[in-house]
């Protein structure tokens, strides 16, 4: 099983990937097992409401949720460092919705 997160607005498979990482209102977290979507979960991003340090707060959430991969826009330098530290991989994607991104992930296997 692999757990992937996507920055989103309202969240869900049909939602578009949000153009900014730390300031996304929600993250859509998806479990993939045997090339199938197993589980879809939408969590609120504490970074969205933060005055500062949004990116790091977002990564903290992802780390707490046990996310292994995040697909979306490039995070800022602090968030990038935090992602590395937490061992979460980042795959850059933009302009897709979540479902399309999952399909791309499954197809290309990155």
């Amino acid at each position, binding site marked *: 099983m692999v757990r992937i997160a996507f920055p989103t607005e309202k969240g869900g498979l049909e939602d578009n990937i949000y*153009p*900014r990482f730390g*300031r996304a209102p929600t993250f859509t977290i998806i479990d993939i097992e045997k090339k199938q979507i197993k589980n879809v979960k939408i969590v609120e991003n504490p970074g969205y*409401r933060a*005055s*500062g340090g*949004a990116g790091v707060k977002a990564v903290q959430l992802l780390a707490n949720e046990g996310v292994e991969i995040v697909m979306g*826009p490039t995070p800022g*330098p602090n968030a990038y460092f935090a992602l590395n530290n937490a061992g979460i991989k980042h795959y850059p994607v933009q302009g897709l919705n979540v479902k399309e991104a999952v399909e791309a992930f499954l197809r290309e296997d990155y």
Partner: protein
Amino acid sequence: MIEISIASGKGGVGKSLLAAHLALLLSGKRRLVAVDADAEAPNMNIVLGIKDWDRVIEHYEGRRAFVLDDECTGCGECLKACQFGAIRVVDGKYVVDRWLCEGCYTCSFVCPVKAVRFERDVLAGWIRIKEKTRWGFPLVSAEIVPGRPNSGKLVTEARNKGREIFREAEIMFLDSAAGIGCQVIASLAGSHAAILVAEPTRASISDLKRIIRLTQHFRIPSMIVINKYDLNMQLYRELKKIANENKLYYLGEIPYDEEVPRSYVSMKPLIEYSPDSKATIALRRIAERLDNILSRFDEWRLEYLPEAYKPFEPIVIRPDKTLG
């Protein structure tokens, strides 16, 4: 959408003048949206002569401490612990200064009787929206509550609103916040290009150098416009040299022109108030050049991308007993 920040370090060098006129002059040719993120002194609407708004959204954020008078025993621990000087004694009582409180929890931790409480989601600013200006493009403008902390959140919110109300726009012009603090970082981070505005004065040159360090940090390809360039030829040459050394694209220069302040008073954009003035002609030329760049943006971007990524290294010193 290509997001272009117009930044200057300090205010008062013609940043809003340029931002407003670029939007105005290019609006006939391109779909664009203008965002005024200079939340401590938003004045793009004034340069454009816009007096009313279609919508005003209140922006709530953060928290603020207050001390319960009845429970406070007057021990003064909070005053000693606050790192922002936000706690003061007024008539023998400890009071949190509502202007200075940053909303961290320090005072509440040190208070032995738990007399510090928090007020949440305080009014922090406003986002004002004009769906369609006379020239067709929408304008979004952010403003903080005077005297309260400025925030990257409000800037981000305004940028989001800008993109939301006009999703099909090709370009967003962002009148960036003044200074070099977190608001500027929130306006620059994620911008595709920056236009730096400077004037030939020592103060503006040192501001420019600071802002260049930031654009290099974020790897934002940048252009430069020199305002009031004929004020001091020696410093003008120095500015051009700095532009050259830092790989800034030279977008143009605007002469000193007394029609500019007069146009502010008239509440009309300069190009309408004084269509033949020296500054108007210069602004038109600058807009044309920018339009050319936008037509081959990707190519331009690659050419002017700051090469050396200069990571920002904070200066950290070792643990020390005197610090806590």
